[in-house]
């Protein structure tokens, strides 16, 4: 089984979050998934511009989507923020005729873009394309005995109508992933609440408060590790939160470890 996807890493994965990227690529190879980095991608903008009258801020996401379409592949993302931006912009192109018209008028592509590309998060690739059962078979180093909490944060799940990854209030995708790599998932209440996000820049206290609430919630339920798919979440939880006995890592790191490619 060989699967080929266009891959959008995003800025942070080239700098501060190299681990998130590198472990994913190594694991993908081990799983027979071909992640072809999209040529000449630009920063997605990091946050989805919610306003109807924001066009310029959506263009780089549309260009990435259009490139993937022209290559005839699905587009895989890894960073939660990039995934959220690209998937929401794609939805705009599909469902908001006004935005689609203005974007197309701006870019003037040969074939107008209308949201044709299928955007997948790497977790969805693991679940829906590789399959967690298949993944389990390829685990050489099961993380037996580890108690791991999934930290979804906001961006993977919401708005659920657009992201359509999982039940936004009771998701299971990362828990199933944790099970597949041999560890025990810890379900805790605040796994889909905000870590403080970009507010960390000017309001550290708020970010600290939010992050601690999340980590405490995981700790109470007995987690020794919390996994995330977002560099900013990782930063907030680790730097602003910090909870004794609870480590915060990228999910791809554990994946690589389990597959023996770390």
């Amino acid at each position: 089984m060989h699967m080929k996807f266009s891959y959008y890493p995003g800025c942070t994965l080239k700098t501060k979050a190299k681990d998130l990227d590198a472990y994913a690529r190594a694991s993908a190879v081990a799983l027979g998934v071909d992640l072809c980095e999209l040529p000449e991608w630009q920063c997605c903008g990091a946050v989805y511009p919610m306003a109807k009258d924001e066009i310029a801020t959506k263009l780089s996401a549309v260009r990435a989507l259009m490139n993937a379409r022209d290559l005839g592949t699905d587009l895989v993302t890894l960073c939660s923020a990039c995934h959220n931006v690209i998937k929401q912009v794609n939805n705009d192109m599909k469902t908001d005729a006004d935005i689609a018209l203005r974007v197309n008028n701006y870019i003037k592509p040969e074939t107008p873009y209308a949201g044709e590309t299928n955007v997948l998060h790497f977790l969805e690739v693991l679940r829906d394309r590789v399959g967690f059962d298949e993944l389990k078979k390829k685990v050489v180093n099961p993380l037996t005995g580890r108690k791991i909490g999934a930290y979804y944060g906001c961006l993977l799940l919401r708005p659920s109508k657009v992201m359509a990854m999982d039940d936004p209030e009771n998701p299971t995708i990362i828990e199933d992933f944790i099970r597949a790599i041999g560890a025990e998932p810890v379900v805790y209440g605040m796994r889909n609440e905000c870590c403080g996000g970009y507010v960390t820049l000017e309001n550290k206290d708020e970010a600290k408060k939010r992050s601690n609430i999340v980590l405490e919630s995981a700790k109470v339920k007995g987690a020794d590790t919390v996994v995330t798919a977002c560099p900013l979440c990782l930063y907030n939880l680790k730097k602003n939160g910090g909870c004794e006995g609870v480590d915060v890592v990228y999910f791809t790191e554990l994946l690589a470890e389990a597959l023996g490619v770390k």
Partner: protein
Amino acid sequence: MSHNKNAAAVEQILRSSGVDVRKCMRCGKCTATCPAFDEMEYHPHQFVYMVEKGQIDKLTASPSIWRCLSCFACMERCPRQVEPAKLIEAVRLSVIREKGANHLKPEDIPAMLDEDLPQQAIASAFRKYSK
């Protein structure tokens, strides 16, 4: 309300956000769910109500507009599809689109940096706070 002196501002915010404030049934679920509640002067349900009442000036002057985490929880959980976060973003945009009104200026950045801070945080903050 259409004769309110702020009619044009209200109109702009409604158009920009795409939010139909009249759908709100004042249940308060947005405010119940908001993680930034303690940091805010005006809370999500008040944004909806105040935009409807045309009290844009109060909102644009309030630090609350910089406190929203854009976590989409209010949008997700609102039973009426009102989407308060979009309204807050539209109010914020109406501020930073004014000349020289950027909330975050490049010269402020160096002081905020630390070695682990991901680029993503800076990019996000610029998108949210500056034009």
